[in-house]
């Protein structure tokens, strides 16, 4: 079985899934920092606090709309974008590059949170380089592969 996603790994995994993600942070149900792609603990904590405030502001702005609060938010700003998604247990927020595709970002966020909640794992395709090391390719036939014997013995 491929590596199971843990809360500690979630932000890093998001960065792996999308090259447009510049930083990501995961908060628990209490709004506290669970993990971050940032190595600097202070910066990670600040990012987590801002992500918590982001949904707080969204809830304030939309409280008269629907009985159900928004699940995801997208903020396009000059120089980049911020995406965030939440479940009752987790909130995952990402700061992305300017050209990041909203639909893909939102899908990745939701899929990762789904995986954290016990949903199916995201299947990633194997890069060609990795595949070449283990399997035969057109350029490099596998030496260990059994070669069929043609013709019978004379």
């Amino acid at each position, binding site marked *: 079985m491929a590596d199971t996603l843990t809360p500690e790994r979630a932000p890093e995994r998001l960065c792996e899934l999308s090259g447009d993600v510049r930083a990501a942070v995961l908060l628990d149900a209490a709004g506290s920092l669970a993990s971050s792609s940032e190595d600097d603990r202070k910066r990670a904590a600040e990012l987590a606090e801002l992500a918590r405030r982001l949904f707080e502001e969204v809830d304030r702005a*939309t409280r008269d709309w629907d009985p159900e609060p928004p*699940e*995801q*938010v997208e903020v*396009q700003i000059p120089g980049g974008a*911020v995406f965030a998604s939440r479940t009752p247990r987790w909130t995952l927020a990402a700061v992305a590059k*300017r050209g990041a595709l*909203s639909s893909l970002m939102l899908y990745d966020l939701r899929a990762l949170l789904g995986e954290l909640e016990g949903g199916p794992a995201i299947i990633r395709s194997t890069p060609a380089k990795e595949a070449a090391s283990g399997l035969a390719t057109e350029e490099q036939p596998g030496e260990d592969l059994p070669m069929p014997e043609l013709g019978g013995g004379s």
Partner: protein
Amino acid sequence: MKEKRKGPLSRAAGLAEGMAATMRRMQREREPRVLVYDPAGYARLIQPEARGHAHIMEVAEEMLALVAERE
């Protein structure tokens, strides 16, 4: 119905129009904005003049600045 273009110049003009439209659409998509999505995935725009819009933008800008600082 769109009139079919004839001749290389008309075709080139058609291509340029298409590219310009794409550029305009990309620009529009990147305009500052706040969108929220319900659990079904339906998007709703928080209008710039709406309550809380400015605060949301501020928080997002702070997040971006924090990351840009590191880069």
